[in-house]
């Protein structure tokens, strides 16, 4: 069953078309890569799914319903931006998540904080940019959500943390949940993907499974991406 379904989804900003006539269906249990160069509409798509933007045209359904309070309790979203208030401590934001999300597993979050050596009493102000990103990812992955929307989850962290993050996504795998990962670092995440969607100038130019791409074209997704988006 599809957890996310959209058809003719379009978002314009004045004269600029950020997303143009996108029709997609994402099934439960899939890990999907949303791939495209900067400005291709990846973040716009994820923001629409979170009701952070209102569509200009088309429909978008999450678990059969338009984005709203209900969908927000099912979706765990990692934005590109750091949304943590500086004055909070790590433990404050943990209890914040526990208060607002019923599916938040605080013990899982604590476990991940320990393995990434982040102290619960530390103030967010004193943490480095990369560490803040890790904290945010921990918060997002510690939820038992039905749809994870991860915008550039591995962009700003070192390779060791990158492996840890990919591992967390694999370990967290749930056949009842889908994961959408937007990124331009394809070779790193390729082995963990089921399907890929290529976005170019706001349009879907390819939707395929990783096995199909490798089986039929005899090239990796990364190589195909370089071919499709050759400058």
């Amino acid at each position, binding site marked *: 069953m599809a957890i996310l379904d959209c058809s003719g989804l379009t978002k314009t900003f004045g004269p600029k078309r950020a997303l143009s006539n996108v029709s997609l269906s994402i099934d439960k249990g899939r890990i999907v890569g949303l791939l495209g160069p900067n400005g291709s509409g990846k973040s716009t798509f994820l923001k629409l799914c979170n009701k952070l933007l209102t569509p200009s045209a088309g429909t978008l359904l999450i678990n059969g319903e338009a984005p709203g309070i209900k969908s927000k309790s099912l979706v765990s979203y990692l934005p590109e931006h750091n949304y943590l208030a500086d004055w909070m401590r790590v433990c404050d934001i943990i209890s914040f998540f526990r208060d607002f999300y019923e599916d938040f597993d605080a013990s899982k979050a604590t476990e991940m904080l320990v393995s990434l050596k982040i102290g619960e009493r530390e103030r967010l102000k004193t943490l480095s940019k990369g560490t803040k990103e890790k904290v945010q990812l921990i918060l997002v992955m510690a939820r038992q959500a039905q749809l994870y929307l991860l915008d550039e989850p591995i962009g700003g962290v070192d390779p060791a943390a990158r492996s840890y993050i990919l591992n967390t996504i694999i*370990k967290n795998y749930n056949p009842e949940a889908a994961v959408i990962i937007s990124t331009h670092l394809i070779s790193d995440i390729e082995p963990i993907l089921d399907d890929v969607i290529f976005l170019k100038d706001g349009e879907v130019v390819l939707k395929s499974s990783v096995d199909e791409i*490798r089986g039929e074209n005899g090239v990796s997704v990364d190589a195909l991406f370089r071919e499709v988006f050759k400058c």
Partner: protein
Amino acid sequence: MNWSFQTDRPIYLQLKEQITLLIISGQYPAGSRLPPVRDMAADAAVNPNTLQKALQELEREGLVYAQRTSGRFVTEDEKMIEQAKNQLAAEQIDRFIEKMAGIGFTVEETLALISKRVKE
């Protein structure tokens, strides 16, 4: 365990080969239980669905079998493992002969070269 994947072939096929190798080499002995899919996938850093697909292929071939509640096991049929071993050896030999032919050696010449090399 070091898993590595080439870029030109589907990952599930490569997983299948590497798991077969683990069984043949005895790292997963006959009759032993395989680790849960999620742990194995995390270890190999691959998608659990992809690993599932590789294991299903192995199941079809009979090298592993699933028990509804307790997970997947390596076959207890030593003969079958032996067979897989031989098949893998045959594939490697074929590939090698092909490569040697590419360089310009006939099968006989290749054999001669091998026995000479081994004696050295």
